[in-house]
Structure formats: structure tokens, C-alpha cells
């Protein structure tokens, strides 16, 4: 059955909003991917050029907020449309913060410099894969209106938290035995923290997708819920 609005202009406005959110999501994913590549390749140049992408992401946030506000004011949306627009308004905030965390990762990479003698840290690579996967799947769930997938993303946050919890105990003995690695290790911890926060933002997005699809607010409902 055709679920389009009788008013085609309204339908078009909602479609534009959805497209802009997807574009912002794609930009954020691209940025994360480049930020992690800059770490893995220890490329300061790539880190610095990646930081510049944040301006586009911020711009999209403003544009999406404006569009959503216009629709709220002019259309007085209800039910699934209202849930979609309120989700959008919150989702862009998380996306923008993910972008900021991408910037933070690039700044740490810049501080680490182009020393390729150190191998990329395994735990950081695992965390990055898991967190990026969460962002990707949360956005996929948003596009598909898939609450099951969104719930799976929410469950995966625990894994990233465990990886992060293992990072400090692993780096601490190295820092104690060799003060020469303290600088690098603190940067790695900082990158780890960014990835852990990034997974939290992906979780927020997934929680909003569940609300958008089912009208159920699942935030702060689990025993380990936070943020």
C-alpha cells in the first residue's frame, strides 16, 4: 500500500530531511574511517586534512536543524512523522559529536607524529572496528526503520566498554617499566576513550531508532544503561 502523504510537498520535505541526515551520516562514517586510517598509517597529513571535514558535518547539523524546525512549525507533524523528526533532531547532535570525536582522534594522531616504528595497537584497532561497525549499523537501522538491528547495536556497546576497560591495565605496566612510552600510551588511552564515547553515541542513535520505529523509549532501561 502506498504510504506517501497526500500532500506531495510535505512528503518532499520529509524526504529532503531524511536525505540530509543520511548525507551527514555518510560524512561522519567517512571521517571516522579516515581518522582511523591516519592512526594506522601514522599519517599526520591525513589526520589534518580529515579534521577539516568536520566543518561540513557541522554545516549539515545546522541545515538539518533548520529543516526540522520548519517542518515542525509549518506541518505540525504527528505520530510516525513526529517521531521521525524528533529522532532526527536528536540524532544529528550525536552525529555531530561523533564528528568531534573524529577530530579528537586526529589531534592525538598529530601529537603522536609520523613515527612508524610503533605498530598500531591491537586493542585500539579492535575497538575502532567495533565502534565504527556500531555507527554504521545504527545508521542502517535508521534508514531501514529496523528496530531489531537497532537493539543489536545497543547490545554491542558492552563489548566496546570491555575493550576500553582492558586498555588501561594493559598499558599501565608498560608505562611503569618504560617512561619513554608514557607519552604515546596516554595518547592511545585518549583515542580509546574517544572510541568508547563514539560507541555510546551510536547506542544513543540506535535507542532513538527504536523509539522512531516502535514509539517505545528504551533509554535508561537496561541494568547497565548510562549516558
Amino acid at each position, binding site marked *: 500500500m*502506498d*504510504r*506517501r*502523504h*497526500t*500532500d506531495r510537498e*510535505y512528503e518532499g520535505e520529509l524526504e529532503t530531511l531524511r536525505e540530509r541526515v543520511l548525507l551527514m551520516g555518510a560524512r561522519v562514517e567517512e571521517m571516522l574511517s579516515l581518522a582511523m586510517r591516519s592512526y594506522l598509517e601514522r599519517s599526520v597529513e591525513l589526520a589534518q586534512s580529515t579534521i577539516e571535514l568536520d566543518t561540513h558535518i557541522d554545516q549539515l547539523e545546522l541545515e538539518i536543524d533548520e529543516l526540522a524546525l520548519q517542518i515542525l512549525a509549518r506541518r*505540525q*507533524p*504527528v*505520530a*510516525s*512523522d*513526529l*517521531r521521525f523528526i524528533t529522532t532526527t533532531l536528536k540524532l544529528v547532535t550525536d552525529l555531530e559529536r561523533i564528528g568531534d570525536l573524529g577530530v579528537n582522534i586526529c589531534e592525538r594522531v598529530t601529537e603522536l607524529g609520523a613515527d612508524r616504528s610503533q605498530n598500531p595497537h591491537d586493542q585500539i584497532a579492535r575497538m575502532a572496528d567495533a565502534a565504527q561497525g556500531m555507527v554504521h549499523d545504527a545508521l542502517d537501522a535508521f534508514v531501514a526503520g529496523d528496530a531489531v538491528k537497532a537493539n543489536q547495536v545497543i547490545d554491542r556497546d558492552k563489548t566496546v566498554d570491555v575493550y576500553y576497560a582492558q586498555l588501561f591495565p594493559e598499558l599501565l605496566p608498560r608505562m611503569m617499566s618504560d617512561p619513554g612510552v608514557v607519552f604515546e600510551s596516554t595518547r592511545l588511552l585518549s583515542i580509546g576513550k574517544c572510541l568508547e564515547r563514539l560507541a555510546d553515541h551510536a547506542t544513543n542513535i540506535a535507542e532513538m531508532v527504536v523509539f522512531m520505529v*516502535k*514509539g517505545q523509549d528504551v533509554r535508561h532501561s537496561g541494568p547497565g544503561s548510562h549516558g
Partner: protein
Amino acid sequence: MNAGPQGMTSRPTSKNASRSDSATGEEASKARWDEVSVSTLVPKMRTEGLRAYFGQAEVLKGISLPIAEKQVTAVIGPSGCGKSTFVRCLNRMHEVVPGARATGQVLLDTQDIYHSEVDPVRVRRRVGMVFQKPNPFPTMSIRDNVLAGLRLNGERPDDPDAVVEKMLHRVALWDEVKDILGRAGTGLSGGQQQRLCIARSLALEPEVLLMDEPCSALDPIATARVEELIHELRKAYTIVIVTHNMQQAARVANFTAFFYLGKLIEHDRTDVIFTRPKEQRTEDYITGRFG
């Protein structure tokens, strides 16, 4: 003072936000969101398997719906869904049309108003009605319009002036008309005329007030006044409002019933209907996806 964003002059700090403030805030929020649910509401009226006909055409196809006491219930749905017929069945106005009839039960408290021994005139005293177009009696003054319902029912109040003042106060019209009570009711603005008609209905001291598109002929300011009045009136009366304006239903009603093709599709708290309706047809209608 308006406590909304316009009226807020400072934000609470840890110094001025006491424990009692926060408890009051919690209670206020509880009162707002934990209103009676559709399954636990106390009905003032209830229809059971209500069917209504115009000749052979069945326009209501078995409606079972409780009307919550001292709450506002909105009936929404596309043209021809039977919503006006439904409210006209609630005070036996439907049968006034030649060839129209209804079957099933309509309970007012515990009494079936369609029982053969029930006098429809008495039903209409207990269940008043306000129509789409303000219809003050054109030859009557404002004062006589308020008293018209009582007089038509053969009543002579001891102090008619007191009744007029009380009813005009109740519809927030007194200050606007107190010096022109002898003038024709039809000389008032549309919004004032509608409030005058509500006063005329209230003079009969009904328990339920039916409103069939009461604001569709009014401008936004007059509409806001009538809606404000509905908020006030629900403290004392059970109100059923039929409206094409879904934002109006969202603004004034505690419960909303969605009708389609003579059937009740969904009945729930208004906040539920407008944020997460359970039925796809409700969703399609309120979001404007009805083909």
C-alpha cells in the same frame, strides 16, 4: 502568571530549588502523563454495539465506546465516517431526521437512553448539544437567548437575571456583553455567538455536552477562546467534541476516538493517538496519508 517559556524569568539553581519544589514538579508531571488510561476510565456514557441507519444505509456499524466522565473525548475521522451521526445518537437527535433509526445501547450512567420508556426530551436536557454554526435565536436578545432553553422546557427560574449572569460568566462572555444584554444575539461576533449558544446549553444544567465542529466557523482567536472554555468546562461536564481539525483534538481532548467508514478504529488517550497510534489506519489518517 504564565509559567511557560515567556513567563520564565530565571532558571532554578541549586540554591532556590528546594526538595518540596522538586516533589511538586514530579507530581505535576505525574498528573499530566498518568491520566486515566482507556482501560480504566470511568465512563459517564457508553455505547454498546450502536448501529445507526438512514433508511437502508447503515452509517454506524456497531460502535462500542466508553465516554470518560468529566474528560474531553474527541471524535475524529474523514467526512462520512459517521462521527456526527455518532454524537447525534448520544442525545437521540439522530432519530429526529425522517427515516433515521438506531439500534444497540447508549447508556447514560446506567440507563439506556433508547429504552422505550425514556423521554428523549429529558435525555436532551442531560446531554446538551452545541452545533457547528453558532445559532442564537435571531429574534431574541442576548439575555433571552440564554434563557431560551429553559423556557422551551417550560421552566420559569425564580431569578432569571441571576441565571443569565451565571451562565454568561461560565462561558467567559459576561464582561463582554453585560451592558448590552437587551441587544440581539445575532449582533455579536461569531465567537461570541458560539459562546452564547454554549451558555444556552449550560442553562439547562446538562451533565454531558456534545459539540459538533464548534469552531469550524470561527477565526483562530475565537477558536482559542472556545478551546480555553472547553478546558474550563471539563471540570464540571463530560464533553464530546467532533472535529475535522486534528490539532484541535490534540489540544483539547483527553481521549480521542478515530472513526472510519462507520466503525471505531481506535480509541485511546490523545497523547498516545498522536504520538504512537496502534492502528495503521489511524496513523495514515492523522499523518495525512489517506488516499
